[in-house]
């Protein structure tokens, strides 16, 4: 863990009935409030994060943590910022997993089996043990997307792996030494570039931005008072959920 023990004289200011539990951070015992996430418990214990902490919101993939809980042999993996501590938990963070990342030009490759053989040949070593899936803190069916890649089904593989946060736990646990998160990224790039239809509305919008369509609107916002800005923010229009009407438009259409 890239963290240091921060010696501070600050006294904790806790309500008197706060439940405290024991956790073991890299083997050393600490008493921490029972309601904290692993991330906050590590900080509570006096560590300061230099690595292994990013968005604090379960998206960036920087804080995967390996832990075991009391009386359970199962090795568990969770994001430190999303997992609540338990009494008797042993934990260590693994902020980075070494893996090879193939270099290629996206226009030179195609979504084929041959491309996988070229860039991530170890993918075919998979024995379908499913250890990767057990390791995934995002509950992705990792083994299944690898199975789809081996079949050559880029669509299914891209869809199954789409919520990957690239923490690398699958690759760290894999007995066949695959690099799941990187081959999945390759598959999603190929799928996005060569299979999915191009988003025409996006190209239109990028063109408008490049033609400075929005500069006057921004200038206008820059000149109005703070109070008016707050007012406009509060009264901004939302498309009513669950977004069922594809023809919905706001009352003010000049920004479209």
């Amino acid at each position: 863990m890239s963290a240091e023990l921060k010696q501070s004289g600050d006294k904790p200011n806790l309500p008197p009935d706060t439940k405290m539990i024991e956790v073991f951070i890299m083997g050393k015992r600490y008493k921490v409030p029972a309601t904290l996430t692993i991330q906050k418990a590590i900080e509570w214990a006096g560590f300061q994060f230099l690595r292994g902490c990013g968005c604090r919101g379960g998206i960036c993939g920087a804080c995967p943590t390996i832990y075991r809980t009391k009386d359970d042999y199962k090795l568990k993996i969770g994001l430190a910022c999303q997992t609540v501590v338990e009494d008797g938990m042993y934990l260590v963070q693994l902020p980075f997993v070494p893996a090879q990342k193939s270099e290629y030009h996206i226009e030179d490759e195609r979504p084929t089996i041959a491309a996988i053989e070229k860039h991530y040949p170890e993918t075919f070593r998979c024995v379908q043990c499913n250890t990767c899936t057990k390791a995934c803190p995002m509950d992705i069916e990792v083994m299944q997307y690898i199975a789809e890649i081996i079949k050559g089904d880029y669509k299914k593989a891209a869809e199954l792996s789409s919520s990957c946060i690239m923490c690398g736990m699958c690759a760290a646990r894999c007995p066949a030494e695959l690099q799941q998160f990187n081959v999945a990224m390759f598959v999603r790039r190929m799928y996005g570039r060569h299979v999915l239809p191009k988003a025409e509305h996006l190209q239109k919008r990028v063109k408008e931005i490049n033609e400075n369509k929005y500069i006057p609107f921004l200038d206008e916002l820059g000149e109005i008072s703070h109070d008016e800005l707050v007012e406009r923010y509060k009264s901004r229009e939302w498309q009513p959920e669950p977004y069922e009407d594809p023809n919905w438009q706001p009352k003010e259409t000049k920004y479209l």
Partner: protein
Amino acid sequence: MEVSYFPGCTLKQTARNFEISAISSCKLLGLDLTELSRWNCCGTVYSLSTDDSMHHLAPIRNLIRVQEDGFKEVVTLCSMCYNTLKQANELMKKEPDRLKKMNDFMYREEDYIPDVEVYHLVTYIKERLGYEKVRELVKQPLTGLKVAVYYGCLLLRPDSIKLDDRENPMIMEDLLTALGAEIIDYPFSNECCGSYHTLGQKEIVLNRTNKLITEARRDGADVLVLSCPECDFNLDHRQKDTLEKYPNFQTMPVLYFTQLLNIALGGNLEDCGFELNYIDPLPVLREKGIIK
């Protein structure tokens, strides 16, 4: 009749002609091949190490998928998938301790209860429909087509999973006879195609292909028929290199049995996927008047 079907990875790639011709011909036989809703690689090669359970996870996991889909039987086509799935299944039936260990390891899945049966399509047709029924459904008999049947190793070995007699198998011959084909006596039907040597030591395979095709030709065959994408690659696609190495070599079309089945049952020619066969079988089929 809905039949649970395990395709295998190769049938989704280089052997697509095997899959599409099987689905089409089975439909004509009244069998609706229903692909498993989820599946993974069969494991490719059955592990022979007695202490190795890891490599049996892949086939057994697929049999759990059969269970999940509510089937008791699964049909497969590729010889390798058949061999691996069936052998692993036999092992689970024989060794409950091993099955328990594997079920424990796969705790995220439902437990495998080893009462799923693995079938090769040829056996399934024989046992469930019978050749009389097949004969009734033939629209375009393969009259005059001389066929050498090639089994290779994986459909016949080991004893516990063999489709038919190991030394004198007749099951595919019987099916093709029902389709009206003329079966030639081909003593090389259970010899090795060279298998994976095709990658590292291609020469071995070219030697085998030269031998196996030349003998089939000498015995009077027009085409060679098989059921294994690996054998097909070696015996069909490697004819190109064989011809380079042995200039007197005479090529011969190699077909999946399902391609002939589809033609005989009156299926669409497009559903045979002949464009994926290296040696074009259309000329000989036309010459015999089997297709227009």
